[in-house]
């Protein structure tokens, strides 16, 4: 160790050391501090482990990052807002600088939100960043969930993290709704009013839950202070806790990666946290924060001063919740009224309960159960660290798209009134169309997606077997034209052939060797049926033998045809010239890298 030399080094000498692998020792004031800390905490081991961690590169991995950074932005801006926001429903008369509201009776919560927006310098910017960031947070959570689902990243050993993620998504929605309600403006007050209606629909205890939550009749004086505590203390603590568990599990599992040359189930290929990901991910935080700020500065959202304070007798047309609650609101618009009925004098309001109370828990239970159902169907007990390309799991991809369609129709239904106005259509027709679409569209989308996936898999096979259409037209001496195909090299081919096509599991005999009905035969039958449903249509990856045969068969076929020109075409197709060009072009990664420079 060159302790003394490093300590005495000039700046230039230090720079000369930069490329050395070995640590620079305990030199310099930084080294002294590090030494002091490490002697008391042993932190160096953890730091080494953390900074050497390798993360693979892919644009789709940035959705989760976006969610993480939005959460940080929310925590920062949210803390700012608490310095001015007054969580009270006490009545006050507005006398701030915003002229249209002067003299209006309002709650202190609303008055302080107007003050933040109008009289605190830069307060509006912080409020707008907070609101936009909440919307972006939930968008990125949704996109992250899509990525994880369609690539099968929820498979063993990540099922637990999928469930933690689901909890995070659900709690974030609740957190968003509650935060949105805090200003006590007309729009959000209407939202709370509707929420009270939802709670009342719960059988047996609905009225009590409502009266406990609101401290009496709606709206009372307690809901804003209570929501405030939930919004700034309870849920953020839970969210940050779950998020920490989420990210720790990513550390433990190491990140998944897409199939590619050199990527195996036993390694992770990418760039180390220090310095590449520290710069890329750290930089991306500033990019997310910066873009959110830019939107917040230029596009107004939730102008509560224009809505006015909450007044139970008033409502504005076009009352939509924030986007992430849209699907639940859409469900309420589609559920028919006949689902409310009375039994033995007790009222069951399924027209409200299904959409507002039951839907989210049911959907989340289905999503939470999915990894286990799929593992049961495939019978696959292995760890999976290589992601699926969505096309290679046609049934899963189809199911996912059907679910997104279901969600999307509910979401669109939330804007049925806006559509009716903008497109000058009958709201009744739009609503009816959505009701029908909600039932028939998911199966159609499932079928179409599955077929598309199978076609894409066939296209992959075609690509592997016959190469890329080079677009180079060759004219033979006899005047015949044909297109030269350019074969894939090993590195290009590997991602297209590296997947496993599951075969349906065989149904074991329903009786044992003595002809007695076996225990669990019914379960096995169901499993076999599900497995058949999942995997009966499948495209196997190209094998080396098939590739070999494709080249030779082509030539054999043409020999039989006996037409000299066609024999020539076989010759040229995949001939030596093309091979040479393929090497010249290299693998796709090279093009991408070259472009960056």
């Amino acid at each position, binding site marked *: 160790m060159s302790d003394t030399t490093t300590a005495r080094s000039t700046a230039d000498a230090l720079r000369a050391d930069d490329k050395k692998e070995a640590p620079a020792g305990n030199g310099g004031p930084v080294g002294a501090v590090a030494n002091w800390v490490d002697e008391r905490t042993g932190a160096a081991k953890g730091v080494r482990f953390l900074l050497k961690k390798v993360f693979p590169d892919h644009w789709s991995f940035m959705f989760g990052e976006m969610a993480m950074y939005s959460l940080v932005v929310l925590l920062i801006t949210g803390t700012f807002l608490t310095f001015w926001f007054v969580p009270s429903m006490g009545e006050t008369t507005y006398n701030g600088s915003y002229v249209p509201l002067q003299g209006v009776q309002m709650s202190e919560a609303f008055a302080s939100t107007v003050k933040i927006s109008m009289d605190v310098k830069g307060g509006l910017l912080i409020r707008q960043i907070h609101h936009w960031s909440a919307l972006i947070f939930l968008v990125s959570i949704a996109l992250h969930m899509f990525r994880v689902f369609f690539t099968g990243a929820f498979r063993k050993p990540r099922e637990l993290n999928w469930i933690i993620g689901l909890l995070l998504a659900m709690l974030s929605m609740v957190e968003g709704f509650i935060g949105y309600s805090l200003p006590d403006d007309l729009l959000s007050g209407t939202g709370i009013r509707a929420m009270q209606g939802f709670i009342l629909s719960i059988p047996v205890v609905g009225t009590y839950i409502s*009266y406990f939550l609101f401290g009496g009749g709606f709206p009372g004086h307690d809901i804003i202070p209570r929501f405030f505590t939930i919004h700034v203390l309870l849920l953020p603590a839970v969210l940050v806790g779950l998020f920490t568990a989420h990210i720790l599990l990513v550390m433990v599992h190491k990140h998944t990666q897409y199939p590619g040359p050199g990527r195996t189930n036993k390694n992770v290929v990418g760039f180390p946290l220090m310095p590449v990901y520290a710069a890329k991910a750290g930089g991306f935080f500033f990019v997310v924060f910066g873009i959110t700020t830019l939107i917040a500065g230029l596009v107004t959202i939730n102008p509560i001063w224009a809505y006015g304070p909450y007044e139970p007798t008033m409502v504005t047309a076009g009352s939509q919740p924030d986007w992430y609650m849209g699907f639940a609101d859409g469900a309420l618009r589609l559920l028919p009224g006949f689902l409310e009925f009375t039994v033995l004098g007790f009222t069951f309001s399924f027209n409200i309960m299904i959409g507002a109370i039951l839907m989210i828990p049911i959907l989340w239970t289905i999503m939470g159960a999915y990894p286990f159902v799929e593992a049961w169907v495939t019978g696959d007990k292995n760890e999976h660290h290589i992601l699926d390309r969505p096309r290679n799991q046609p049934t899963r991809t189809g199911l996912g798209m059907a679910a997104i369609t279901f969600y999307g129709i509910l979401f669109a239904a939330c804007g049925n009134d806006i559509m009716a106005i903008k497109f000058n259509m009958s709201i009744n027709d739009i609503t009816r169309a959505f009701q029908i679409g909600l039932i028939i569209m998911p199966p159609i989308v499932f079928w179409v997606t599955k077929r598309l996936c199978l076609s894409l898999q066939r296209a992959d096979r075609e690509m592997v077997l016959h190469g890329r259409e080079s677009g180079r037209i060759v004219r033979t001496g006899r005047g015949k034209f044909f297109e030269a195909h350019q074969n894939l090299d090993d590195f290009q081919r590997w991602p297209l052939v590296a997947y496993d096509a599951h075969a349906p599991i065989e149904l074991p005999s329903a009786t044992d060797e003595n002809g007695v009905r076996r225990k669990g035969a019914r379960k096995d039958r169901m499993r076999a049926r599900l497995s058949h449903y999942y995997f009966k249509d499948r495209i196997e990856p190209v094998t080396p033998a098939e590739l070999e045969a494709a080249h030779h068969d082509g030539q054999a076929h043409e020999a039989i045809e006996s037409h000299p020109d066609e024999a020539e075409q076989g010759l040229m197709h995949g001939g030596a010239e093309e091979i040479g060009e393929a090497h010249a072009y290299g693998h796709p990664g090279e093009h991408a890298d070259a472009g960056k420079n």
Partner: protein
Amino acid sequence: MSNEHSPQEGAVANEESGGVVATRDDEQSLPARFSNPGLAPHVHRLGDSDEKAARRSERQVAGLFTLSMIATVLFIVAYFTIGEKTSVTLPISGKVGALHAALGVTLAVSLLGIGLGAIHWAKTLMSDTEVVEERHVQRSDDEARDGAVKVVMDGVESSQFKRRPLIKYTLGGALGLFALPLGLQLVGGLGPAKDVADDLKTTLWDSEVPVLGPDGKPEMKDGKPVTRPRRLMRDPEGTAIRLSDVTLGSVFHVLPEGINDTADPLNQKVKASVILISLEEDKIKSARERNWGLNGVVAFSKICTHVGCPVGLYEQTTHHLLCPCHQSTFDLTEDCKVVFGPAKRPLPQLEIKVDDAGYLYAPHGFEEPVGPSFWERDR
């Protein structure tokens, strides 16, 4: 590579029939699956070899960081110089506060400069050689597992947990119950547990207002204040309504008289809000509706029976009331029954009459609970 044949080989295989057989032999020796070719050869960036390109990247990164600093300074300048009342008109976003927009844009550039600079630095100058890290199965090895089980079992053993069932069961009971007091305190203190349904079922229209004497004090009779039913008052003016004020086709938003003298006016408004509309009397199909109205002037609860939004939109030509929240549509000519949307029950009607002074009043409250349904509403 299996697909590398020279044209000569291909030609030979074509001309000789034996070529095909040779291929078959080939196939048998091939593996069942392709094998991973390993990492693709690394392609170096221009900046890795060309110092000029690297220097250019350095300048770009430094430029972005400098841009960030400039924007930070501009933010501070804008904060102190731009007036809060100034506004600017921007393309697409329209008229916005100048200070707000300036702060937003400068802060955004300050942040983006750092972010984009760091990313550009990582992409052009930091090593882009991929690093391979090995994975290990998550499962602990058997030794660790046995060790963990042993620690737990030893603990159970040494604490005599299994041998002393009395401790086991009482501990279970105590742990199972200790949260109850905390839960009870929380839930018990949150809100009223009595007369909850009654509160939902009554509105201010069920009670009466004291009659004021000429001196402005409540008139007394037999030691009790004299009361009369509540008049219909305009919302928000709070003035009484004469039948003649309600011209054909007009809509009045109505609250009960004296609502602002109650303890919680908002709580009362949520239930007692009423919409008063004048229709042509012969359009009204229901006899009860006609009887509870006056010459075609009818009053209905304004609170939607779905989830409680105010039913604010009246379509005069069809006589439909539409709730803007979830589009439940009520037919005013037929007891406000639901003709479309997710609500089930009609809006309750409020009977109206004219008093001696010529003002509209409600002789009694609604005959059924207003607003969203709840479990006990029909009990």
